[in-house]
C-alpha cells in the first residue's frame, strides 16, 4: 500500500478557506463562453429585428410607397406600385379564423377527453396519434388540402362555387394541423389541476361532465387561453399549406370560398422566383415579414403573460 508522502499533507498553517482562493482560469473561461452561447440567442432576435427593420425602412423610404397606403389600401399589385397590406392580411385573417374555429373546439374537447375520461390504456393509444399528426411536415398538409380536401369540398358545394384553390380548404387543413398543438398544451394545463378539486366535485355528486367543465376547465383556463393564443400565432405564420392550396392572387376578400394569397404565401411565392436584390418588390417582402414577426411576437408574449398572470397556484 502506498503511503501518503509527508509533503502532500497540508501544514498546520493551511486553512480550508485557502482552497477557495485558488484562481481557476479554465472554469471562468468555460462559464464565459457558455454565457456567450446564451447571449447568442438574444443576438438572433436582435438581428431578425435589425435585418427586417432595415430592409423594411428601405421599402418605406421608396418614393412609390407611403406608410398610409401600406396600412390603409386594399390592393397589393407590386407591378403597378400598389402596396396595400390589407389585401394580404385579409386572407391571413380568413384562413387563420377558419383554422382556429376548427382547432379550438376540437383540440379542447380532445384534451378534456384525454385528461378527464380516457383510461391510461386509451391514452397510450390516442396520444401518439395526435403526436404523429403534429409531426407531419406542413407541405404534406398542403398536398392533402389541395388534392383531397379541396376536391371533396368542390363536390359538396359545386365546382362553379368553389375553385381548385380556395381559402376554405387551406383553413380547414390548417385547423387539423394546429389541433394537436392546442390539445397537448390544454391537456398539460388540465392535468396540472390537482386531483383533490375533481374529487371534491365528484363528492358533491357532480357528473364527469360537470366536474370537468365547471371545476377543472375553469381552474386550467389560463393554460387553455395560452394554448389558443399560441395556436393563433402558429396559424398566422403558417406558410406551406396556404402556399399550396389557397391560390396565388392577392385579393382583398374575407370570402373563404375564394382564392386569395396570405402574407406568408406571398413571401414564399415572390422569393421563390429570381427576384433581383434591392428592388421595391424585394424590400416589400421584408416589410411583410417584419409585420408577421411583430404579430407573432406579441401573441407569444401575451400567451406567456396570460399563463403567469392568471395561473391558479395550488399547494
Amino acid at each position, binding site marked *: 500500500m502506498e503511503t501518503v508522502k509527508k509533503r502532500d499533507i497540508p501544514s498546520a498553517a493551511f486553512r480550508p478557506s485557502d482552497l477557495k482562493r485558488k484562481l*481557476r482560469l479554465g472554469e471562468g473561461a468555460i462559464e464565459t463562453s*457558455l454565457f456567450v*452561447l*446564451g447571449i*447568442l*440567442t*438574444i443576438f*438572433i*432576435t436582435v438581428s*431578425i429585428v435589425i*435585418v*427586417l427593420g432595415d430592409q423594411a425602412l428601405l421599402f418605406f423610404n421608396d418614393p412609390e410607397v407611403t406608410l398610409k397606403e401600406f396600412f390603409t389600401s386594399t390592393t397589393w399589385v407590386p407591378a403597378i406600385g400598389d402596396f396595400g397590406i390589407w389585401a394580404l392580411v385579409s386572407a391571413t385573417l380568413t384562413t387563420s379564423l377558419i383554422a382556429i374555429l376548427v382547432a379550438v*373546439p*376540437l*383540440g379542447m*374537447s*380532445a384534451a378534456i377527453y*384525454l385528461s378527464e*375520461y380516457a383510461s391510461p390504456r386509451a391514452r397510450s393509444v*390516442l396520444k401518439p*396519434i*395526435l403526436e*404523429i*399528426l403534429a*409531426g*407531419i*411536415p*406542413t*407541405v*404534406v398538409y398542403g*398536398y*392533402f388540402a389541395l*388534392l*383531397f380536401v379541396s376536391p371533396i369540398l368542390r363536390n359538396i358545394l359545386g365546382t362553379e362555387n368553389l375553385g381548385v384553390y380556395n381559402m376554405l380548404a387551406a383553413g380547414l387543413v390548417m385547423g387539423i394541423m394546429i389541433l394537436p398543438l392546442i390539445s397537448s398544451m390544454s391537456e398539460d394545463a388540465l392535468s396540472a389541476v390537482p386531483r383533490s378539486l375533481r374529487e371534491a366535485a365528484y363528492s358533491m355528486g357532480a*357528473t*364527469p*361532465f*360537470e366536474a370537468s367543465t365547471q371545476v377543472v376547465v375553469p381552474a386550467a383556463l389560463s393554460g387553455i387561453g395560452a394554448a389558443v393564443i399560441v395556436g393563433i*400565432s*402558429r396559424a398566422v*405564420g*403558417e*406558410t*406551406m399549406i396556404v*402556399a*399550396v392550396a389557397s391560390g396565388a392572387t392577392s385579393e382583398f376578400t374575407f370570402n373563404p370560398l375564394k382564392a386569395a394569397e396570405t402574407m*406568408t404565401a406571398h*413571401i*414564399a411565392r415572390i*422569393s*421563390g422566383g429570381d427576384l433581383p436584390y434591392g428592388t421595391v418588390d424585394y424590400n416589400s*417582402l*421584408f416589410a411583410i*415579414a417584419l409585420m*408577421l*414577426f411583430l404579430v*407573432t*411576437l406579441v401573441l*407569444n*408574449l401575451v400567451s406567456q403573460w396570460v399563463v403567469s398572470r392568471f395561473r391558479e397556484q395550488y399547494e
Partner: protein
Amino acid sequence: MAKYIYPEEKDLQRFVAGRYRKAWVWQTAFLSSLLIAIVSLTALLLNVVDGAFGYVAFEYKEDPATISEKPLQDLSQEELLAILQANLSRGAYNKLNEEKTMERRSQADLYNLVLERILKVDTKKTYSLYDSLFRKAEIETEVKDEFPEASLEFRYWLTPAFLSSPMSSRAEFSGVRTALYGSLWLVAIAIAFALPVGVGAAIYLQEYARKNFINRLIQTNINNLAGVPSIVYGMLGLAIFVRAFEVFTSGAMFGITDTNGRTIMSAGLTMGILVLPLVIINAQEAIKAVPDSIRQAAYGVGATRWQTIWSHVLPNALPGILTGSILAMSRAVGETAPLIIVGASTFISVDPDGPFSKFTALPIQIYQWTARAQPEFHNIAAAAILVLLVLLLTLNATAILLRNRFQRRF
C-alpha cells in the same frame, strides 16, 4: 330565506337521469373530436398512398417491336446500350455519356433512357390506387375509348429507381436522389451548428445562470424564438447568410467560384438557427431531470463546477439531449418555407458535392411537384411524401428507442 323544498323522488330521479344523459352526450362529443383527428390522419395517409400507386395509360411514339424482339425489361445492360447507340444521334449519345459514362449506368437506368429518348413514352392519364383496385373494368373501357393506342400498366411510382434517379423534366423518369442528398446535407449542417450551441446555452441556463434580469431575458427570448414563424427565419437567412456572408456561404473564400450564396451552407445554417430554440429547450429539460444529489455528490468529493457538469451531469442528461436533437432534426427535414426563401434550386439534376453547392431538398420537391398542373407530377409528389414520411418515422423511432434504452429514472 326561502325554504328549500326537496323535490319528489320521481322528479329527483328524472333530474339526475337528465344530468347523466347530458354528461354522456358530451363525453361522446369529446371522444368524437378525437375520432375526427384520427379520421383526418388516416385520410391524409390513405390519400398519399392512393396517389403513389395506380394504373397509368401511356403511349409509345415508337413501337417497341421495331427496336427489339424481346420485351425491353428482359434485355441486358449490353443489349440496351447497343440499342441506345444504334438509335440515338451521335451528339445526343455523347452528351449523355458526358453526364455519366454509359458503360457505368445500371440496367434500370439504361432502360429508362430507352423509354425516354427512343420510344418517347407519353403518359395520357393516371389513376389512383382506389380506382385501380375497385374500378378496373371501367378504367379499361375508358382507356380503350379515349386512347385506343395506349396501353395500360399498373405502376408503383415509389420504386428503387425513384430513389436512385436524379430529377428530370418528365415525371416518369424523375427521382429524389438529388433531393435526398440535399436534405441529408442540410440536416447535418443544421445539427452540427445547433447541437453544440444549443447544449452550451442550455448548460449555461441550467447550471450557471443566476436569477437576474439578463438571464430571465435569455430564457424568455428562447421561448419566443421557438414561436417565430419559420418563414421569418428564411428572410433572416436570405439577408444574412445568402447576401451578407456570401463570401463564406458561396465558398468563394475557399476558392469555389461557380455559385452564389444560395448554397447548402446558407440553408443549413438557417435551419440550424431555426431548430436552435428547440434544441435548447429539450436539452434544458434533460439537464433539469438530473437530480441534485448527483451534483452534490460530485461537489462533495471536491469536483469543480465544470468537472461536475462534464463528468456527471452531461453523461446522465445525454440520452435526453440526443432524443431532443433527433426531434429537432426531424423538424429540419420537414421544414419547407425557409428553404424556398433561402433559394433552393427548382431544377437541378447534379448531386450536391459539398456544402457550397446548389441544392434541392425533399420537401421542396414535394412542393414543386404538388404545384404542377400535370397529374403525373402529383403521383411522384405522393411517392416523395412517402419517402419523407419514412425518413421521419425512422428518425422518430430512433429517438424513442434511445429514450427507452438509455434513459435513467432517478
